[in-house]
Structure formats: C-alpha cells, structure tokens
C-alpha cells in the first residue's frame, strides 16, 4: 500500500476553474477536495466536482479507441483510429473541399484553442458549438457594443447586485464563481433578482421581478426608460461615451412602462423600484445568465443590459461590471490561428451571411449544419468530428439533429461515455477527464486568471482532448508540437514561464486596471459604447436594440395557444448535472433520479396531476414525459422542465434519447432564432400537459 500523494489541480466538471486537491494512492485518485488557496473557489467544491472519481472510474467509461463494425463497437489502436479519421477527412477534402467537414464541441471545455487550431489548419470554417446561444453570443454582442465582455466584479464590493436570469451558485457562471457573489452579497449589498421562478435567490432578494419567460429585453427597456426619464444616468458619460445617444433615447421611449408591464407581466411600480435601486446603488454589478441569450432577442438583450451598465456608470468600474485584464500569455485566438483560415474558405461558412455575428465569433448555428446535411445546400456536409458534445440531447429540435447526424457519411466523436450522439458515430476516441490532463486552464475566460490544471493520473488509453487534436492534426500535415506540454510552453512564453514553472505557481492573475476607456476609449469602431451599432448598421440590420415578441407565445400565436395553452420554459438547471452529463454517476443520480417538470398546483389540479406523477409535455414538435413537481413559485401559466435528460442505464443504442429530452419539443426554425447570432429559443415556447395513464 502506497502513501497518499496530494496533487493541486483545477476542476472541469462544468467549465471549471475551481481549485482542487486530488488525493492519489497506488496510482488511483481516491478523493478530491476543494483547494483553500484557490482564488476563485476558496476551498469549496460542488457536487459535480466532488463526484469526479465516480466519473473517471465508471464501469461504463470507454477506455480505448473504438470502431463500429456491422453495428458493433470493436476496440482498435490509437494508430488505426487516427489513420481512419485522417484518411476519411483527406478523402472528403479532395472530393468536396474542407468546408464539407464539420468540427463541433459542446459547451467548450477548455480545448477550444486546440479544436479551432485543428479546424483552421484543416481549412473548414464550419465549427459547431453551443456558442450561438450560450456565452459566446454574449461575448459577440458585447464585442460589437463596448469592445469586451463586462464581468461582474464581486471583489470590488458592489452595493447593489442584479442577478438577471442567473443562479451562479447552482450552475456555472463562467467567470467568477457563486462563492464570490455570495461573499459580496453577505457584505450587505442590495439584491435584485429577475427570474420567472422563485428560487433561493428570489427568496433572499430585496426585489424579485417574476417576468414572463423570454421577455428580458423588454424588461431591460423598462429599466432604461425609468433611468432616462428620471435622469438617473451618468450624464457626462452619456454625452461623451455613448454612440447614438439621441437615437437610443428615442428607441427606449417606444417602450413606456405600461407597455413593458403588459409584455413582461411585471408590475410597473416594481420595475420603477428596481431601476431606481440599480441606478442609485453604485457600484452595482449585474450578472446575467443564458436565458437572456436563448431566444431571438439574444443579441439585443445583451446590448440593452450593456446599456444599463454603461449609463449607470458601472462599466469597467470597481464593484460594477469590469473588463478584466488577462495575464500576459498567448490568447486562445492566437493559438487557434484564426487568421490563417484562408478568406476563400471563410466565405464558405454555412450561414455566414445570414448570421454575421455568429460568423464574427467563428461559429455556426446548428440549424445551418443540419440543413446542409439533409438538403445538400448550399453544399453537403459529409464528415464530422464532435468533441464533448451530445447535440441530440442538447440542441433545439432534437429530432432534426438526430436525423442529420445519422446521415453523415462519417462521424468521429471524442467523449467519455457512449452517449446517444456517440452511438451515431463510426469512430469513438476516448478522452481523459480533467484528472488526466495538463492544461493552462481558464485562458478563454474573461476574469483575468489562468490556472494550472495538472495531470493527476492516466486511465486506460484515454488521451486528453488537446492531444487528440494535436496527433490527428499532425497526421494531416498540420503544424503542431511534439507534446502537449510543448504547446503549453508556447502559450505561456510571453509571461516568461514554462509549463513546469507555471505548474508550481498554480495560477496567474492579470494586473487589473479600471476605467481603461478614459485613456483609450472603447474597442469599437467609434471608440464609444455603441448602443447605436455601426457594425449592425453596416450589416444592414437594425442598429438599435429592441424587444421582439417570441414567435411562439400566447401573444403572437393565440391560435396555437388554444391547443398548447402553457408557456414552457425548457431550460431548468439541475445542481448535480451539467447539461446532458452525469446521469450515470450513482451519487448524483441518487439525488435526482428522474427528470422534473415544475407545474403550479392550480394548473396541475385542472389536469388531475399530483405531485410525483409522470406527465406528458407536448409541443407542436413532439411529446415527452417528465415527473411533476408542484410548486407555487412559478406563474400558473408557465411550466418549467429540466433539460439534458437521457438514460444511460437503458442499454440499447438510443439510451432513451427521445423519452424525456426537452429538445424534442423545442424549435430551430430560422424564424425562431436571433437574426444575427442564430441563437435558438430554449426558453419560451408553447406546450400542453397531461397525466401519463397510470397502470
């Protein structure tokens, strides 16, 4: 029996960043704990991170490269697996062009630098991510508005906090963790919570605004209306630093509070109170979550929220929303060599003209990929490589995603488990978990930190994702490094550190400077905060943000609402799971064995539904079942369902992918998506409910 060795690393069970001490005995991780010295998590760790040993050593985990032969998976060598992928890709490039290969990832798990480098050097502009409706959409919208993503600055001690459609203590807030928000809140900050559900934070809040799902942009216009009407804004800033101030004011005027109250279901007086509290509570930090991005108002909502931060003097202010300065290392963008994708290839990007903001941030919305596969237009997609993604569960209109992926000539996946998506593949490449990799973590985030995620163990023949892209790239004649660690040395070089040295340090923080615009202006074409966007104008789109009614709502489609009378919010998060992951981990599944749909008791009573009953949820796209949880914390007109469900314990290749999967219900028509970003609507559609027959 060996000694217990403790290794400092960084979690990545979600997008990661929490500091971890892993306990290793006889070459096996026996326990993980939070690292008290972590500047982000301060020793805490969530249920997902704490369960990593059950993921890493799970009996169903795929530990070797696999090839599907006659519908059966067979173990093969890495050499053979990579040769097969490289040969197929080369054949597609020759016959159809590199653009006919789609490269995809899910939420982005700290390997985008390598994934994009592989795609760019291959020459395909078609990279499929979750970014069209999650985080990258926020980055894109703020890039064109104020030049960077403004991040809530908890350490700057905000006096007022707006938690807009976000629960950073349950789910991944990307930059700073829920624990820092909590510390700021406990110092006595006022709390405004905007959420259709009465959750933990709504209970804690000074003001809780229970809005109609999907109407966040209208509510933001309401806030702006109060702040402008009552002259609560920073006048000097507005005069000096807002592009199109008069036009913007005129647009906001189109949304008087009566109209906003009617759209959002939030009382006028409450909007006034909240807007005044935010505007007068300097410094005030606004943290916003993905629900604001997951409708066709995606870009406009982010632009309006940026307007709120700017006009109240909270942009790049301590305790407000800051542009954090990164440590001096090579950026993900530099490493990815975006500039080396030939223009000729860039112009072939699917949906590039239709969704110019998605194109600007180098991704495509899934719909255009499915269209290309299913119709061959504008050209066919023939092969794909998907890494850490389960689109048949997590992308809108799951049936279409499933059909499209089934029709690809060749698909390779990189994952831990045989997911319903992986089952559609020809080659399975087994990835290492975060315990099995060396990486400069968090480099893509905008909180000013990078972290050393260091390898603790090796398991089976699993390779870290980075190495898979690197070895495949080398086989295709691309320029890479000999080892992963060499590539990390390259990333770290500008900081004067090697990977070995960085590992010892644990993390690096950029030197923060606030109010950078006073010296340099904002990184936009006019140097100002472009509430009137010259870029959108150039693209021939509305340069001013607005609220567009959800195309499938009781307001826009009363005809459809007669049959599907409830607003379905299909984006309910679960603290123990990350999107479609973790359902196979016994500790976590014990806590949440079944998918939950929240229904108001009055609504449930009308349909004879009791707490705990299985319920059919139906939309114009299909029908699924989940288990009812009755709660009076939601509006009786709203139904809220959990996302990400499949059943790893069902052993047939579908793994119950269409039984409880909310994306069977969601829409991905072009009309339902954000017109510049291609964000799909995962937050507000119409549904009916009925009890499942009891036997």
């Amino acid at each position, binding site marked *: 029996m060996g000694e217990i060795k403790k290794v400092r690393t960084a979690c990545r069970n979600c997008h990661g960043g929490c500091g971890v001490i892993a306990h290793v005995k006889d070459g096996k991780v026996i326990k993980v704990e939070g690292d008290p010295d972590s500047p982000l998590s301060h020793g805490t760790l969530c*249920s997902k991170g*704490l369960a990593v040993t059950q993921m890493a050593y799970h009996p169903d985990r795929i530990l070797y490269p696999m090839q599907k032969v006659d519908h059966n998976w067979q173990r093969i060598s890495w050499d053979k697996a990579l040769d097969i992928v490289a040969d197929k890709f080369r054949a597609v490039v020759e016959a159809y062009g590199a653009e006919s290969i789609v490269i995809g990832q899910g939420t982005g798990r700290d390997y985008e630098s390598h994934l994009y480098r592989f795609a760019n050097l291959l020459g395909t502009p078609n990279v499929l991510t979750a970014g069209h409706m999650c985080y990258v959409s926020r980055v894109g919208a703020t890039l064109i508005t104020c030049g960077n993503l403004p991040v809530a600055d908890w350490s700057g001690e905000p006096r007022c906090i707006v938690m807009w459609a976000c629960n950073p203590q349950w789910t991944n807030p990307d930059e700073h963790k829920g624990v820092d928000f909590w510390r700021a809140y406990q110092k006595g900050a006022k709390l405004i919570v905007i959420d259709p559900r009465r959750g933990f934070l709504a209970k804690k809040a000074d003001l809780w605004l229970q809005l109609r799902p999907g109407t966040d942009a209208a509510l933001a216009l309401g806030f702006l209306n109060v702040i402008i009407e009552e002259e609560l804004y920073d006048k000097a800033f507005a005069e000096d630093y807002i592009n199109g101030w008069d036009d913007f004011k005129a647009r906001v005027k189109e949304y008087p509070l009566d109209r906003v109250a009617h759209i959002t279901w939030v009382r006028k007086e409450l909007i006034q109170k909240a807007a005044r509290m935010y505007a007068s509570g300097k410094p005030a930090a606004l943290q916003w979550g993905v629900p604001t991005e997951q409708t066709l108002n995606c870009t406009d909502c982010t632009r309006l929220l940026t307007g709120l931060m700017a006009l109240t003097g909270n942009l790049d202010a301590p305790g407000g929303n800051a542009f954090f300065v990164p440590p001096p290392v090579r950026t993900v963008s530099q490493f990815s060599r975006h500039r080396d994708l030939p223009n000729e290839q860039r112009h072939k990007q699917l949906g590039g003209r239709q969704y110019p903001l998605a194109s600007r941030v180098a991704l495509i919305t899934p719909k255009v990929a499915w269209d290309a596969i299913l119709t061959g237009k504008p050209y066919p997609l023939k092969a794909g490589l998907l890494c850490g993604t389960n689109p048949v569960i997590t992308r809108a209109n799951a049936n279409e995603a499933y059909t499209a992926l089934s029709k690809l000539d060749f698909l390779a996946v990189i994952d831990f488990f045989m997911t319903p998506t992986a089952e559609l593949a020809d080659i399975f490449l087994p990835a290492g978990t975060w315990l099995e990799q060396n990486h400069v973590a968090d480099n893509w985030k905008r909180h000013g930190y990078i972290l050393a995620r260091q390898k603790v163990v090796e398991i089976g023949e699993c390779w870290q994702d980075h190495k898979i892209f690197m070895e495949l790239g080398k086989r295709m004649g691309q320029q890479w490094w000999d080892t992963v660690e060499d590539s990390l040395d390259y990333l770290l070089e500008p900081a004067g550190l090697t990977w070995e040295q960085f590992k010892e340090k644990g993390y690096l923080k950029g030197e923060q400077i606030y109010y950078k615009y006073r010296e340099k202006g904002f990184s936009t074409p006019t140097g100002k905060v472009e509430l009137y966007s010259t870029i959108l104008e150039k693209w021939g789109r509305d340069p001013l943000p607005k609220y567009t009614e959800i195309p499938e709502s009781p307001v826009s489609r009363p005809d459809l609402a007669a049959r599907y009378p409830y607003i379905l919010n299909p984006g309910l998060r679960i603290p123990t799971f990350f999107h479609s992951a973790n359902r196979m981990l016994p500790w976590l599944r014990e806590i949440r064995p079944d998918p939950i749909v929240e229904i108001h008791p009055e609504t449930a009573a009308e349909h004879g539904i009791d707490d705990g009953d299985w319920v059919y949820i139906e939309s114009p796209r299909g029908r699924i079942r989940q288990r009812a949880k009755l709660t009076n914390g939601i509006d009786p007109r709203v139904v809220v369902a959990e996302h990400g469900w499949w059943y790893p314990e069902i052993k047939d290749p579908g793994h119950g992918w269409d039984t409880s999967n909310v994306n069977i219900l969601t829409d991905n028509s072009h009309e339902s998506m954000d017109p510049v970003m291609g964000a799909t609507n995962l937050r507000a559609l119409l549904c009916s409910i009925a009890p499942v027959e009891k036997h």
Partner: protein
Amino acid sequence: MANTSLVIFKKDCMGCHACEIACKQEHRLGIGPRLIRVIENAPDYIPIYCHHCTKSPCLASCPVDAIVKDDRGIVLIDNQLCIGCKECLEACPFGAMQFDDEKQVAVKCDLCIERLKNGEQPACVKACATQCIFWGSTRELSARLDGVI
C-alpha cells in the same frame, strides 16, 4: 460532559447537495445511506442531519450499546457491535440514522472524526459554498444561532 454538534443554517441552504457528495466520498458510501441530505422544496431547502443530541434517542434505543457518545460528545456507532435491528432508525426524530443495505448495519454521521483528528473540518462544512454548515461546541453553536457570533 462536553457536547459537540453540527448545525446547518437553513436560511442559507441553497440546495446544491455538495455536502451530500462530500460526505459520501469521505465515508466511501454507495447508493442508499445518506448521512446528510437536503430535501428540496424551493425556495426552501431542508437539511436532514445528525444533531449529536445531548440526550441521544438513537443511543438510548440501541439494545446492544453499539451507539456511544465520545468524550467530546460526538455520537458514534460501532459497526462491529451493530446487529442491524433498526431500532435507532425508528428512534431518531430527524431521520438522520441511515441503514447500509449491503453491510446490514446502521450508519450515521461521525462528524468526520478522522478529519477532526488531523485538524480538518468535517467534509460537508468544507464543501458548502454558502458556508451555512457549522460544527463545534453546542455553546458556540447556540451563540451563533442567537446571532452573537
């Protein structure tokens, strides 16, 4: 006799379940026994856990004296002595006593006694993101509950 206990401030419990997994990991428990557990009734979350009661009903109910209070007041069960009769599960007013189906014995919170020996906090206390779990002397915990600390 000194008394040591665990207190979870319900008002700050946000139902993330990190304490449960930290506990499972520390005690190497599989599916079944949950020495600490949070019941969800959003926006309220109700933690179920051992209070290490001064007059412990579980201890009093045990027919074979497998449950003892150590000199600090931590209520412990000796798995070797336990006969699996489940009297303690009935006796506990909180539902904190658990049963390990595999080993056919009762199991309970030991306040991570091995960690305490090393000067560490119980695993649940350490993992909690809102820091709403406290352990210590009942006197200190009472002061905390009264808002003195």
